[in-house]
């Protein structure tokens, strides 16, 4: 039986839309409106839905880049919002996020070595020599070598940049990674390489993925379970096989009819 890693209960994220006059009633954009689900250790969980459905907001909430308006996130049974600052910093090692466009998530003025060293230095993990060893090891893990250490982001191809972004995410040996449209901007051939890499790393490090994508082909290939989001809510959730074969909710039906026509 698989252990739950992250449990989300009635999670909400509202953005204030109050305009001007203070006596006017506040209105909210309900980006995420009361979702609950459980992620199990070692699984790839897909999140699909159109733009604005709340996929990315959910991803950012799970790694606490933004804070929820309401609801709880439990990581291995512990309520994340009850963490002290110190606990929170320690916890941040365990959860990482990879974005769609590595060009905007990598600092253009810093070398690959700096990018990969920063998280290690920040968490004070070893002296310079051990950190260097870990950086080189991680580069090998993502299919690159030492020759990339002194390169800058603009000297890399799209696929190589995404490998560096993944290296930066796994270097702290996290348990959970959110991949927010992480392969969407890549050519099919490079996309296939990155998907294979993510699968390899999952086995090697026992990673759990939240895989956010608008590309249903990729999600159907990559994920064990899928949740369909629509205007801030999860309208359907289940094993990939079952969701492909028969969708219950009308929105998921129309979504899947587009790809499987």
């Amino acid at each position, binding site marked *: 039986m698989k252990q739950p890693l992250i449990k989300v209960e009635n999670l909400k994220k509202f953005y204030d839309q109050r305009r001007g006059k203070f006596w006017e009633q506040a209105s909210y954009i309900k980006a995420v409106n009361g979702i609950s689900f459980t992620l199990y250790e070692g699984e790839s969980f897909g999140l699909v839905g*159109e*733009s604005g459905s709340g996929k990315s907001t959910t991803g950012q909430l799970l790694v606490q880049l933004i804070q929820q308006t309401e609801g709880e996130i439990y990581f291995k049974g512990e309520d994340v919002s009850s963490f002290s600052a110190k606990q929170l910093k320690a916890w941040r090692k365990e959860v990482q996020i990879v974005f769609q466009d590595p060009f905007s998530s990598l600092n253009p003025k810093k070398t690959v070595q700096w990018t990969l060293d920063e998280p290690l230095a920040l968490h004070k993990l070893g002296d310079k020599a051990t950190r260097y060893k870990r950086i080189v090891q991680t580069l090998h893990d993502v299919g690159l070598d030492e020759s990339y250490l002194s390169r800058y982001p603009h000297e890399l*191809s*799209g*696929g190589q940049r995404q490998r560096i972004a993944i290296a930066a995410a796994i270097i702290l040996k996290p348990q959970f990674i959110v991949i927010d449209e992480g392969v969407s901007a890549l*050519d*099919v*051939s*490079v*996309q*296939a*390489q990155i*998907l*294979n890499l993510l*699968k390899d790393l999952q086995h090697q490090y026992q990673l759990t993925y939240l895989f956010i994508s*608008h*590309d*249903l*082909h*990729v999600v*159907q*290939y*990559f994920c064990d379970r899928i949740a369909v989001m629509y205007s801030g809510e999860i309208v359907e959730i289940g094993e*990939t096989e079952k969701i*492909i074969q028969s969708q219950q909710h009308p929105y998921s039906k*129309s*979504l899947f009819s*587009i*790809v499987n026509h």
Partner: protein
Amino acid sequence: MNQATLAVHELDITFHLPEGEFYALQDISFEINPNEVVGIVGESGCGKSLTAKAIMGTLPQNASITRGNMIFQNRQLHQMLDKDWQRLRGNELTMIFQEPMTSLNPVLTIGKQVSEVLKRHTSLSKKERKQQVMKTWKKVGLPRPEALWKAYPHQLSGGMRQRVVIAMAVIGQPQLIIADEPTTALDVTTQAQILSLFQSIKQNYNNALLFISHDWGVIRRICDRVMVMYAGRIVEQGDVDKLMNEPKHPYTKSLLQAIPNASKRGQRLYTIPGNVPSLQERKTGCPFYERCPLKMKQCEAVFPDTYTFARQTVACHLFAKEGDHH
């Protein structure tokens, strides 16, 4: 036989770089007929967008046409003067880009931007222009035209912005529209809507469409014929269903094999080793040689001729015996 809307014949494009002269496109020949949708697929850096730029006459400063010609509606495109281009571009020959936000002016209202096309290319009065714009908006599925007339680009969603750009592209009733990755930045549902819009435009306006994409799913939905480009060459072309069901060129096969889908779950995806060679790395032989799973001795030195099978052509030495040589 109808005359082709656009005929490109043995086109070479050369980049003049400090290190020397490099071919970016080589021996590109194809035709697009009225009412036909032709796709171009291939990885980044294979020359898809450059082909579009060559047709639009917007090549970068350091690139030039060194061989071949392009005939659009009986006019030699590469010999045209700037003032002829101004009449043609945006009117008979239009282009749609990937990111609609970058092709719209953020400080002009939508009404002003779309009607400017008519102001430039027609002698319609202000009132007639507005009528014409609203009629076009209706055709491309844009609701509430009066509100839209005064709106600014940032007030619209991505899908609506792309519809506005499409409206600008079709309003002059062009003979040829070039669409460069027009749905890549959109999510699945909007993408599906925009693709059906392209289909209805074709029926309404009877124009030809050159559709550039790296997404085979999109290509299959919309195109009649498709060209596969690799490192500045067309390596295979044919009817889209036939080509995707029975790809001949090893590059086409590899690309199609790399596409993930539900039935490949749990398996490793096929990947093509290596990268697309850069301009400077390209040699005389077949550019796919280094990465090809079926390479032979002659591939390294000699670029293969093109062989024809019914309506499918392929540039690969593997077919030297089977196909019609030309």
